[in-house]
């Protein structure tokens, strides 16, 4: 049977504004606002909620037919005013949808007009200063959720970062990782005693405690005052392999304020974690805290204890390109062959970056495919017959149909509990991943064995 290829079937990506809304949730007192129709905001909320299991309020300018024809200026201004009144935000993170982009709304101009209204005497929406408005252009036909994520953070530093005398301060752009990963990053930097700005930081806003009343804006997030300082930092670490300078917040800071940019893959696996901790040692001029040495030691020990179960097992790994690069390198380092590295993203750099980290990529017969959907991945799976499937929840149907043991990582994880508390980064994150992988293989062996052994 001929496979259809013009259409996208079961996309291995989400749309641009979703990433932007997620990133904006990591700024303190910020409300994400989508300029476009109601549906997009609702779907995106619904989607984020299923992963994070937290209320996620995203305002929308609620286009109607007139707005679509005559432009969104009026709606946007009214919307900003309303959301300011009801949420009292300090920041509004404004992302555009396909719709407002296509009708060509000049959002920057509308924002200027909006601000002018109040400068010309109109009473402020709640008597307080106007919130800072950050605008990210995020049409979905120009990229996927991960592009929106970076676009929002680039717009944020472009809007807020200030020039000034250099400080002993490190910017961390962690990419789209879990709240648990963000918490772990903060712990590491504190242990190194380095002042830092983590951007975004949704570790609390999207994984917080119970409430006595409704928090229109949950507490947590990176404060505006510290984002301002990103321009004076002594360096930026950015976990990304495929993000180009033009789209990167760290790239922006380097170009505009000469803040050195250290771009590196996500620290997953021993080698990449070593690189990350090594860089921290260098930048902080402090040795690795004992605690992490211990974590590393335990991890090396675990690698030894577990290696036989997984050696030369075949895995398919998919998701955002940066996650795939880091995961594949990690898998290779523990002896698993990531027979297919796949992503719905399309930076054009996926293969190149993988080759850099996995020198025997071609010899090991590792396939790399970008811009794919799940029907593509499934077609590959039928031929490759992997022992493991590693990626977000969207692979579940395939894993069930073809009986491939499945390990859920990244986003979204919406058919399991606790995706927001899953750790991926550093020695500790690697340890968690390693244990899960080994246990998945063992569980599979157990359940397919005629007796089911109970002792190893």
């Amino acid at each position, binding site marked *: *049977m*001929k*496979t*259809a290829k*013009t*259409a*996208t*079937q*079961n*996309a291995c*990506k*989400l*749309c*641009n504004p*979703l990433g932007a809304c997620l990133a904006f949730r990591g700024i303190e007192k910020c409300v994400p606002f989508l300029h*476009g*129709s*109601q*549906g997009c905001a*609702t*779907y995106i*909320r*619904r989607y984020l*909620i*299923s992963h994070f*299991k937290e*209320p996620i*309020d995203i305002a*929308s*300018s*609620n*286009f*109607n*037919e007139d*707005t679509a024809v005559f432009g969104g200026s009026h*709606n*946007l201004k009214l*919307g*900003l005013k*309303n*959301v300011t*009144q*009801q949420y009292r935000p300090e920041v509004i993170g404004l992302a555009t949808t*396909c*719709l407002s982009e*296509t*009708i060509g709304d000049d959002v920057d101009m509308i924002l200027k007009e909006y601000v002018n209204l109040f400068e010309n005497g109109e009473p402020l929406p709640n008597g307080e200063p106007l919130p800072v408005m950050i605008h990210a252009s995020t*049409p*979905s*036909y120009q990229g*996927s959720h991960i592009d929106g994520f970076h676009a929002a953070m680039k717009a944020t530093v472009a809007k807020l970062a200030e020039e000034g005398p250099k400080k002993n301060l490190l910017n961390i752009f962690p990419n789209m990782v879990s709240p648990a990963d963000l918490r772990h990053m903060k712990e590491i930097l504190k242990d190194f005693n380095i002042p830092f700005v983590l951007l975004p930081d949704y570790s609390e806003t999207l994984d917080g405690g*119970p*409430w*006595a*009343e*409704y*928090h*229109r804006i949950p507490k947590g997030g990176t404060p505006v005052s510290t984002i301002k300082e990103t321009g004076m930092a002594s360096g930026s670490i950015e976990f990304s392999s495929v993000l180009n300078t033009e789209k990167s917040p760290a790239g922006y800071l380097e170009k505009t304020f000469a803040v050195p940019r250290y771009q590196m893959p996500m620290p997953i696996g021993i080698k990449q974690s070593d690189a990350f901790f090594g860089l921290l040692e260098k930048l902080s001029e402090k040795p690795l805290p004992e605690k992490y040495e211990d974590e590393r030691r335990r991890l090396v020990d675990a690698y030894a204890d577990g290696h036989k179960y997984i050696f030369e097992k075949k895995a398919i790994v998919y998701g955002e390109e940066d996650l795939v690069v880091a995961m594949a390198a990690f898998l290779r380092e523990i002896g698993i062959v990531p027979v297919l590295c796949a992503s719905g993203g399309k930076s054009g750099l996926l293969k190149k970056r993988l080759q850099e980290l996995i020198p025997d990529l071609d010899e090991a017969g590792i396939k790399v495919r970008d811009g794919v959907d799940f029907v593509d991945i499934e077609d590959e799976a039928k031929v490759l017959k992997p022992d493991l499937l590693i990626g977000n929840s*969207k692979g579940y*149907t395939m894993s069930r149909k073809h009986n491939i043991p499945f390990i859920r990582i990244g986003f979204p994880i919406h058919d399991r509990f606790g995706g927001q508390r899953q750790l991926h980064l550093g020695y500790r994150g690697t340890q968690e991943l390693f244990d899960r992988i080994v246990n998945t293989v063992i569980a599979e062996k157990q359940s397919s064995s005629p007796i089911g052994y109970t002792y190893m």
Partner: protein
Amino acid sequence: MEKIGILEGREKQVYEKKGDSAAIDIKCETTSLSGSVSQRACVFCGSRVVLYPVADALHVVHGPIGCAAYTWDIRGAVSSGPELHRLSFSTDLKEMDVIYGGEKKLHQSLTELIAQYQPKAAFIYSTCIIGLIGDDIDAVCKKVSQETGIPVLPVHSEGFKGTKKDGYKAACDSLMKLVGTGSTEGIGKYSINILGEFNLAGEAWIIKKYYEEMGIEVVATMTGDGRVDDIRRSHGASLNIVQCSGSMVKLAKMMEEKYGIPYLRVSYFGIEDMSMALYDVAKHFSDNPAILDAAKKLVNREVSELYPRLQHFRQALEGKKAAIYVGGAFKAFSLIKALNSVGMSVVLAGSQTGNKDDYEGLKEMCEEGTVIVDDSNPVELSKFVLEKEADLLIGGVKERPIAYKLGIGFCDHNHERKIPLAGFVGMYNFILEVYNSVMSPVWQFAPRKGGLS
């Protein structure tokens, strides 16, 4: 606690029942206020919800990727056979398509997908952006239909062109193009179509079994566990039964007009409404008393089995308070009755898309102090839930984290539910769900009960 106000421009969408105060005059059926965090979706969502369970049709979303990605297999509509509906197809428009138009891509996509999946029909949803760039999807559909020989049906569901309700209408328009295209041979006199039943967690099977037990032939369940061929011959049925939210009232009306098939509105939630849904049909076929007898027997059996099982819950739940925020207001009526039947009261009743009559009806049913609200948002919902000291919130996935954050029980009663809540057995499941959540000891740690916040 900080006092939360209602947004300017929304005051008229909120009403509190006090004494025999002024007639209820809720502003509804308008688009959501700009800048509010409405819980509503869009026209496309409405269409997708209704047509989703047609399992042997191809569903292609024409637009950029998001609209399709977010609706990939998120509903609980199950199928007894083909499962084409659980896949997500999109033309995934790129910048060049937006500039030069997406018709070619749509044509190519459809041709390939139909060749690959051999569907019985195809539904093509047009999203916001299509409404803007002006692709002539009707023409493309017609062409592909001629080339492939299957019905290829445009669904005009551009998100911004109204509310979810308009999406229901667009879906009905598409379905109507299928109705009447099949042979009605062999359909008897005592026959019905079930409309607006989406087979969430197998609910259509429960309902269908009841009717069949009464000696009634079910020609098509539209659209739960839907099959294109059934829909094509559905005009051969004698009666349409329209469930709940009213999403398919328009189709029923069109079928009445064109084929003279009368329709009845029913609800399958709660003992009272479920029984009524069976009796009403039996009464319609009053020339055959055996049907009414069978209905009585059925109801009797089910209720006498169910009733004692509910008593245990009633003891626990008596006096507890519930807040309801659902899509269609019609469902709220059933929920209020169902909750009352185990001794619970309702302190908030709201919907995304109710009309004046719905709200009037709600006011009649509700007790003093109940808040009635149209197109609400998280800030308002949480305000009322706390002020009215609700023990339970009934809503959809977007409302769930609000309840849990505030330490309040929750029951999912929308399109994503995974347990059947319709029918007699559904009533049991529903109350069990309510009980499981409301009575859980975990709430003792909630800040509103004195726990740490």
